[in-house]
């Protein structure tokens, strides 16, 4: 019983939850989006700045459960400073992990702390929590790129 639970609530996740990185909205930004998880009401406001083909900043403000908070923290830390294309690939990789129902082997080289979410993939109801900020990031980045080609 506690094995699945412990697989979900990895130390890494609880650490990011208690001490989230990059939390708090920052300037400058090219796009800001607001995403909501309709079933539970978890929310994130997220800003993205893109410069010279790099994700130069990601900042956010959010309310939500440990999984959604930790996921935002891990994501921001992972993507800031990456070339947009590479960040998109990381996004894809995280998406594949979360939608894999526990059958996808995470690649630590790509996802770093993100591999801690592998245990969440077994709980369909929580997958949305883990993806909330990632989806917001993708949306905001798309907007930022439209703004500034």
């Amino acid at each position, binding site marked *: 019983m506690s094995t699945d639970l412990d697989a979900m609530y990895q130390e890494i996740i609880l650490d990011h939850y208690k001490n989230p990185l990059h939390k708090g909205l920052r300037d400058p930004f090219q796009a800001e989006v607001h995403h909501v998880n309709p079933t539970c009401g978890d929310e994130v406001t997220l800003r993205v700045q893109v410069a010279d083909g790099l994700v130069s900043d990601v900042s956010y403000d959010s309310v939500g459960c440990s999984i959604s908070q930790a996921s935002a923290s891990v994501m921001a830390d992972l993507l800031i400073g990456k070339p947009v294309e590479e960040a998109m690939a990381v996004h894809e990789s995280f998406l594949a992990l979360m939608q894999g129902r526990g059958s996808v082997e995470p690649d630590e080289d790509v996802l770093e702390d993100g591999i801690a979410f592998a245990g969440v993939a077994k709980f*369909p*109801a929580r997958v949305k929590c883990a993806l909330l900020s990632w989806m917001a990031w993708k949306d905001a980045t798309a907007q930022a790129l439209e703004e500034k080609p």
Partner: protein
Amino acid sequence: MAATLEGLLPELEVIRKDFPILARTVAGGLPLVYLDSANTSQKPQVVIDTMVDHLERHNANVARAMHQLGAESSEAFESARDRVAAFIKAPSRDEVVFTKNASEALNLVANTLAWARGPLAVGEGDEVVITEMEHHSNIVPWQLLTERTGATLRWFGLTEDGHLDTSNIVDLITERTKVVSLTWVSNMLGTVNPVAEIARRAHEVGAIVVVDASQAVPQIPVDVVASGADVLVFTGHKVVGPTGIGVLWGRRELLEQLPPFLGGGEMIETVTMQRSTYAGIPHRFEAGTPPIVEAVGLGAAVDYLDHIGMENIHRHEQAITGYALDGLATVPGLTVLGPLQATQRGGAISFELDGVHPHDVAQVLDARGVAVRAGHHCAKPAHQRYGVQSSTRASSYLYTTPAEIDALVEALEYTRSYFKVG
């Protein structure tokens, strides 16, 4: 003769064993001859068992529940959507909306168009085109829409031999036309309509095409994109699934432009007392607790049909329909309404019997164990078109045998003698 009929499902007796009700006797001991499948189909054991298993072991509300039962139930519900999407070859599962029946699905379209703004809006000067062979469920919603918005309702007439009269298509479907809604297969005449051809004309003038596939999906392999439809609807209980569930498929770009239909839980993104925003498709159109166990049953139903194969079912229907048309032709005073070639029609055959009212026909048939429908079959205008007040309808499905058609023909002969006609 019957035994050698070409196109019959090979393991028909085995298939019949899947349907518990077919073992019933009626009318004091006679075997049931169920020829009312266009009204509602019978259910195979696997559909019933799947529903029971869900209720006994996995029942919980969907989407909202985080616990294990909730996860199981959501998984079962959403995977039914996947299976239905695959069954009708929908490009995306999100384009599959669960409704309570086909009627609600048609009303969903008509109602959301009534409130739509922008290019989809239907108002004065606009026209909606239907046909004279529609089921009431594809007439009344459009009457309500056009009455309420000041638009005009127009329709294709019918030819003497039971086809759509498309000779005036260019006058009927014009720049003013906003919607063309028509049945793929008539539930009364059996006619199979040239949906793709009509859709082509409709799309030329920028109209939306709504296809009532309630009688088509049970019988014909359906590819929604190839059909030409923008929206296509059908109903669970006619495809060996339960009542309480229907399906609306719609092209994503169209569905995404439609305003909400019913408001409530599950269809929202966020709610404040001042205003709400709405979820994406398909959930935007599924307010409240959806028909969960019904979706699960429908998933099992389309799996069952897929397992037998829709091509095979279609061939079986054609064989039985041809055999029935031949048999009915031997009954003196009997006139079939609609096309007389099996290849031009679906498996519902409506007919008149000289000198005996359809109620009385159905009653005598029932006393022989033969279940048919009598009345206007929710297609009053089509009856009126042919000057017929009501008719008797025999309709087959994948479990129907030639011997059952023989029983029908025999019972009709008995009816004639009972009422001393001819």
